[in-house]
Structures are given as C-alpha cells and as structure tokens.
C-alpha cells in the first residue's frame, strides 16, 4: 500500500510537471517533446532555407518567392490580392511569435500568456485604446486597404494552420504553452498603432508641470523655453505663409462612445511602464542630395531610422512585384506595406518629426455633480467602460476606465486628468503607405501623405528625375488658447481646435542648394507662425542635424559612398563646439593633450572620446544638480538633459556669466564650472579605468547590445564595443546602447544602385542562420545590394518557394 501511495504521489508530480509545468518551467511534455515541441526549431531552421512548393488556401494564381542567401524575400504575384496574401504568409513563416507579441501588446493581452508581470502594460494599453482605434480605422478602411488587410490576414492564417498541422509553430509558443489565435486585419492596424505609440505618445506636459512646481515658473520658462536657445539646423528655413485658421482635425466621432480608452495614473504610472510604451525621443537620420550635387548625376538619398535594436528586428526585408506594386524595402511584420524603400521611380525614408501630439487636460469637477465634468458650460458625464484582462496563473483582472471629450482619464489623484493624443484619431495610414508604395513622382507622394496623421514623420524623397523633397507629414494640433506644454484646463477654452493646414506644415522641394536633411531636429526657424512643440523634450538636440548639414554642405559632388560614410560617422558636433572652449579653461595635463589632438570622433579606440563624454556629464551635473537637490525636483535630471544640454551649450558659447553658474551666491562663471567638472572627470576616470589616460578608450565604457525581443539575455547579440554616442550620426545612446540605426539605406538614382542593411536577420528562430546573420555586416558599416526579383533569382544560392492555390 505504501508503495502504491508513493507511486501515485510521484506519478502525480511528474505528470503535473509534464502537463502543466512548475514554477518558471513550462509544461515539460509539450514544450520538450522532440517531435512537436520547441525542438522543432531545428527542422524549421533547416527547412526554411530550402526550395519548396507550398499550397496556400485563398491564392488566386501561383506566386513565386525567391529567397536570397540571407533570406531577403522577393514576392512575384500575378494579382495584388495574392501579393498581400503571400506577404502575410512570409511574415508569419518567419516572425509569427513577434507578430503575436506585437498585437498582444496593443490589445492588452500579454498577461494572458506571460502572467501578472504584464498587467501594467495591459491596463495601460486597454485604457489608451489602440484596439478601439484600430477597429474604427478598419471600419472606415479604403477598398485598397481592405483588399490588403484581408488578403494579408489570410496569408498569416494559412501559415498558422500549416504550422499547427505540421507541428511547426515557433518554439516560444511551445515554451509558453499557447497557440496563436487567427490573425485579423484589425491586428495589422494594432501593430501599426504600437509603432505610433512608441514614437509619439509622450508624458512631457506632465514632466513640465512637475518641473514648474519644483523649480518655479522663472527657471522653468528660462531653461525649458518654447523656442530653442541655439541654432537648430532647420531644413525648411522659410519664408513661411502667414498663419491661417487651423484646418479641421478628423473627428473622433468614428469612435463609439461606449468603447473605452484611458491611460495610467499620470507621470509616475507612465514612468513605471515597461520601456517602449512611452515615447522618450527617437533618433533617426535621413537626407537627400539633388542631381546638381551628385557625382553620379542622379539624386542621392539616405535613411537610417533609429529604433530599439532587437532580435528579431522590427524590419523584414522584401520586394513586391504585382500588377500595381513594384517595391523593394522593409516592412513591419504584421502589416501589409513597405514602410521604407523604393519603387521604380521614387525612394523614401523617414525620421520622427517629434512635434507635440499629446496634450493633457485637467477636468473641472465638483461634489455637486458627481461623476461629471464641466465642459463648455455644461456638466457632462464620463463614459465608463469595463474590460476583462485574462491573467495566466491568476484571476481575471477587471478594469474600469473613464472617457472625457478629450480622451482617456489617466489619473483621478489631485485633479482628474485626461489625455488628448493624435494617435487615438482613426487614420488611414495603411492606405497612405500603399499610396506611397505606388507613387511615381513627388506630387503623388505628397498627395498620399495628406492622409498621414500620426506619428508625424519627416518623409525624405528622391526620384529618378533628380528631384528631392522632404515633408514633415502628420497632424500638428493647435489649441484655442493656453500653454499646451503644460496640462491645460479641460473646460473647453483650451481644447485642440485643429491642425496646421497641410500646405503650411514644414516641407521643402528641390531647394536651391540641393540638399535636404532631417535628424529629429526642429524643422523650422523661430519665424514659423505655428506652435509645433517646445525644445524641452519634443525635438532632439540639433547636433546630428548640424553634423549632417556640415558634411553635406561643401560644394563638392557627393556619392553613395559618401552617404554610407555619413551614416556611420562618429563626429560629435557638440564636442566640436565645446572642447575648444574647454581647452581654454583648463590647465595643461595629459588629459588636456588628448583632447587637444582629438578629431571629435567617438571611435572605440579614442581616449579623448571617453574624456569628453564624461566631462559633459560632469559639467551638466556641476551646473544643475545643486538646483535639483535643493528644490527636490521629482523628475530625474537625465530625463531633461537634452533641453538642459542645449541651454548649457548656449551659455558656454555665448553667455558664460549666466546666473545659472552662480548657485548659492558664488561668483562662478562657465569657465570655473568647467574646471570643476574637468577635475571631477579625471578623478572619476582614474578610479574607473586606471591612472594612464591613454588607455581610457571609448570602447571600454561604451558598448552596444542588440536585445532579444523576448528579453532572453542568452539570445542577445553583444554587448560589444561600438563607436558613436547620442549626438553622432551613428547614434548610440546609453550604456550599453540598445538603440540606433535599425535600417540603413542608400540610394543613388544616377548609378541605379540601392543598398541597405539592418542589424538582425529575417528569422526569429534563434536556431536559424537567419537569426542574426546580418549583424556583423551592419556593425562593420557594410551594405547589401537591394536586388530585384530577377537579379535575386539569377544570383548564386537563391532558393525558390512556389506557392500554389
């Protein structure tokens, strides 16, 4: 009997672990079964790189896909419908888990598969309402978007069915113990919404409010001025047409009032969310050179959008050939569009425009009108909506959110605050992207962008006739009154009343000097007649833009090779301004000698780069930390370093006696504080790296890592030393840096060459050679040719996938 009881207990334990898992372990049976579990990644890795014939439900005619040796996919379809279907299949074949994560993030369904650790994210997303917006967008979708969305979803679902039948679902599904639900067109729009949120949902007005509360109105307005204290390298210098009444913004009425959005508990809650949900500033570069400045005689264009660098990457490289589309570039898995690339006549890339698209409103309430708020003289009721959030291993979470006319209520502490966000306006961005994919000239390109709302992007353009353009497309909300950089009264007087008319937004076409560039800088001068955001945190400092402009400006002819060199340029423009002043301020030393002979390049073997960067941080700390500590500022100084740094730059170069240096009644000037900061720098680096400054190389302290999307450290690439910093064209902020050029593309219309690279691989399968095979090439600053389907088929090593109805 004892033996039987013991057997029963041990059996129960083993079967429980096998069927249900234990603690952090997945259900061991289905997860590690060598035939249908996670081990199938080995078969997937081997099979995906072989030629094959596939039968896909829903295809109208056969489709041919050529895969280059690096997995770049060239889809040739006889109908547009089949093109989108095949794209959905290819995305799902290589990125299904990534796609599922992205849609779950936007839908607030991560907790269902990963447990309560994702609850904050899910609550926030359901309140913000990406799902609601995506549903409204789909309900109003154009016929072109509907065709793409439905066919694409069919292709994804074909792959899900195939993978389930053949036990080929990505390993992470087996390890997490769930199956993907069918894909819908709304899911594609949610994935697009994820990107919009990451790039432009900001908490800056909340930050400004906290700063004003602690630092006071005077210092806040001085240090975080609406207009920047330094030149901004605008690409659109004017003259500008006089301001006219704002154009109407597409109404939110498409969104059912019964559906919910809300956000979190204001700044603290937003700050506590996982990285990536709130825009914290993005770094990207793009530029174009007209044929008059091009060595090849045709227009040049370069683009490198800077994003969180992950494995798998956000991009999937492909080309399309169908009756209506002949496009090559990168797509986001989950969406049926080529976001950046070229077609037969035009090329384009984008950077984040970073104008203000998020506004906070303080709702007026009183005890005599419970559950209501005052708006335009009338008491209105909030819409209360409830959601259920399934949680793995726990009870379902119930969430009730409130919605005012401005948007979701994000906190009810102190004063009820709601948020107006342009990303909540249903848009037709998918149709815009498909329109760009089909555009044949600047007029068509620009017309397509009229429908682009959010996030506002700087779309650079070049074509086969030598033309170049740059247009910062999207909504630029205008308020009737008030200070939009702070939370505003919600009683109606300060509401968003429209946007800058499309013809008046920043843009340029074929400028006289033949160059255009953007790097997230403010696009216009102080003369621009509309409010587009403040320097406090909306626009990036102009240093990358200045450096790019500096490199483009000489009168010499430029080539594609020059474009590539610029994309990996490590010259720090701010250093080139400040270091000469610093050298005047400090006494002689070995460290000073290193700086004096420095070329301002943040190269991994440069000790001067380490000294400069450490000095700049020390200089910021020496100047501002006393204020921060004495006034108990609740915002981390590092969060506003971009604004403070531009102030410090301006004062150092033009106002060294500014009162900011005289904290506590001292008579210090910029020179005194620089000396203090430099002494601190040498002391810090001596402790950290030893007494010989010649060994303080940048690569010792500055590394780059490309992180696994599922946050599996063992599947990261790196960290490894890399050059650049936050202010160099080769953007590499943070330590280690996990943010930077997510795709580099260089187009030379004169030579007919299109070259690109991204740091990752086509497959999310870590056992595949296509998981991270492009990273070394990217690290080394090399590119691969963007081949046509025909050229790819003729190249050695290509594989063919024949898709049959």
């Amino acid at each position, binding site marked *: 009997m004892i033996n039987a009881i013991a057997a029963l207990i041990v059996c129960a334990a083993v079967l429980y672990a096998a069927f249900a898992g234990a603690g952090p372990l997945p259900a061991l*049976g289905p997860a590690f079964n060598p035939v249908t579990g996670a081990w199938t990644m*080995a078969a997937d890795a081997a099979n995906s790189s072989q030629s094959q014939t596939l039968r896909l439900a829903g295809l109208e005619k056969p489709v041919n896909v050529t895969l280059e040796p690096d997995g770049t996919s060239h889809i040739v379809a006889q109908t547009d419908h089949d093109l989108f279907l095949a794209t959905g299949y290819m995305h799902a074949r290589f990125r299904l888990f990534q796609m599922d994560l992205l849609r779950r993030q936007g839908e607030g369904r991560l907790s269902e598969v990963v447990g309560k650790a994702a609850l904050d994210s899910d609550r926030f997303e359901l309140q913000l309402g990406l799902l609601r917006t995506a549903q409204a967008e789909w309900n109003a979708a154009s016929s072109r978007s509907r065709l793409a969305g439905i066919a694409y979803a069919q292709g994804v679902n074909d792959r899900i069915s195939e993978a389930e039948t053949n036990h080929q679902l990505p390993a992470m599904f087996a390890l997490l113990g769930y199956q993907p639900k069918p894909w819908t067109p709304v899911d594609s729009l949610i994935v697009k919404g994820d990107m919009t949120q990451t790039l432009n949902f900001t908490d800056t007005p909340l930050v400004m409010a906290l700063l004003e509360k602690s630092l006071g109105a005077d210092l806040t307005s001085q240090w975080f001025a609406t207009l920047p204290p330094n030149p901004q390298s605008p690409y659109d210098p004017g003259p500008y047409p006089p301001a006219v009444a704002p154009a109407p913004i597409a109404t939110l009425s498409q969104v059912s009032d019964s559906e919910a959005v809300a956000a979190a508990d204001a700044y603290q809650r937003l700050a506590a969310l996982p990285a990536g949900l709130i825009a914290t500033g993005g770094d990207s570069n793009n530029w174009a050179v007209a044929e008059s400045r091009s060595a090849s005689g045709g227009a040049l264009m370069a683009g490198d959008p800077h994003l969180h660098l992950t494995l798998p990457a956000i991009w999937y490289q492909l080309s399309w050939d169908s009756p209506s589309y002949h496009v090559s570039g990168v797509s986001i898995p989950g969406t049926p569009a080529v976001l950046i690339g070229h077609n037969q006549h035009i090329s384009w890339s984008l950077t984040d425009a970073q104008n203000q698209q998020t506004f906070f409103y303080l709702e007026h309430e009183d005890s005599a009108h419970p559950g209501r708020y005052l708006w335009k003289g009338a008491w209105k009721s909030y819409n209360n909506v409830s959601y259920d959030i399934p949680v793995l291993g726990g009870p379902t979470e119930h969430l009730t959110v409130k919605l005012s006319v401005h948007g979701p209520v994000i906190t009810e502490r102190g004063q009820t605050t709601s948020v107006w966000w342009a990303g909540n306006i249903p848009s037709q961005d998918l149709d815009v992207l498909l329109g760009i994919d089909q555009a044949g000239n600047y007029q068509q390109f620009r017309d397509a962008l009229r429908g682009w709302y959010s996030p506002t992007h700087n779309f650079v353009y070049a074509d086969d006739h030598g033309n170049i353009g740059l247009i910062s497309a999207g909504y630029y909300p205008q308020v009737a009154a008030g200070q939009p950089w702070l939370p505003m009264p919600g009683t109606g007087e300060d509401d968003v009343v429209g946007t800058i008319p499309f013809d008046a937004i920043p843009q340029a076409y074929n400028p006289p000097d033949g160059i255009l560039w953007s790097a997230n800088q403010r696009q216009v001068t102080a003369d621009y007649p509309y409010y587009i955001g403040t320097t406090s945190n909306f626009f990036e400092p102009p240093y990358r833009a200045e450096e790019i402009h500096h490199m483009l400006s000489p009168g010499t002819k430029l080539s594609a090779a020059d474009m590539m060199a610029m994309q990996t340029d490590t010259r720090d423009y701010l250093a080139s301004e400040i270091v000469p002043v610093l050298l005047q301020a400090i006494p002689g030393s070995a460290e000073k000698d290193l700086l004096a002979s420095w070329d301002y390049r943040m190269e991994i073997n440069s000790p001067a780069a380490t000294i400069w960067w450490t000095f700049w941080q020390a200089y910021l700390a020496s100047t501002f930390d006393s204020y921060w500590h004495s006034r108990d500022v609740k915002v981390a100084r590092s969060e506003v370093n971009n604004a403070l740094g531009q102030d410090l730059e301006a004062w150092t170069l033009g106002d060294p006696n500014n009162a900011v240096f005289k904290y506590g009644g001292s008579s210090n000037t910029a020179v005194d504080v620089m000396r203090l900061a430099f002494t601190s720098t040498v002391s810090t680096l001596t402790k950290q790296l030893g007494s010989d400054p010649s060994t303080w190389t940048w690569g010792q302290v500055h590394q780059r890592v490309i992180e696994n999307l599922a946050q599996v*450290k063992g599947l990261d690439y790196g960290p490894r030393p890399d050059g650049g910093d936050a202010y160099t064209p080769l953007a590499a902020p943070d330590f280690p840096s996990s943010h930077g050029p997510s795709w580099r593309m260089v187009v030379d219309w004169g030579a007919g060459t299109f070259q690109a690279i991204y740091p990752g691989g086509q497959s999310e399968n870590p056992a595949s050679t296509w998981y991270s095979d492009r990273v070394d090439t990217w690290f080394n600053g090399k590119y691969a040719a963007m081949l046509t389907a025909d050229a790819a088929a003729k190249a050695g090593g290509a594989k063919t996938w024949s898709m049959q109805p």
Partner: protein
Amino acid sequence: MRALAGVILAAIVSIAGVLAGAWWAPFVAGLAIGFVQPRARFAVPAGAIVGLLAWALPLAALQIQYGAGSAAESLAAIMGFGHLGAIPIVLTCTVGLLLGLTGAWLGSAARSLAYPAISR
C-alpha cells in the same frame, strides 16, 4: 523472452505515439508494462528504458536529419543556462525516462494491489 518482446512492443508503440504528437505515450506504455509484468524489478527499469528511447530516438533522428546543436544552445539560452546545449538534451531525455519509469511504477503498484499473491 515474452517479457522482452512485450517491452520491445511497448517501445515501438511509445515511439510511434511520440512521433504522432502523443508525448505522454511512454507513460501509458510504462503503465501497461508495470501492470502486465509481475516482476517490479524488471518492469520499472524496462518502463524507464522505454520512456528514454521514446524521447531520445526522435531527438537523435532530429540531430541526424537537421542538426540539433543550434536548437539545443538556443533552448539552453531561453532556459537561462547560457549556451550549454547539453542541458536541454539531458532534460528532454529525463522527461521521457521519468514518464516511462513512473508509468511502470504506478502500473506495478496497481498490479500488486489487484493481484497481491502473484506480484513480486
């Protein structure tokens, strides 16, 4: 001889089950071995071997056909063991072994309750 034949049959059925996606087949096979075989000292090791074979042979086939090294390293990384690919291999084999072993043990114990006089 009949006992050995029975074990071989159980192994074949288990492997077929695992190949068909029924990863729990070794447990059922072990249960049957334990219940049919009167000697527990034979049944339990036999069940363990059947379980081990049922999971290890498909894994070996995977290695021969596709190469499992990269997948093993990836699984180790996901499990937090760096790139020690041997760990998921051992874990996989252990799961199969335990399924067969516990199935046989339970079957044998059940037999001893049902037929106490002829169970050893």
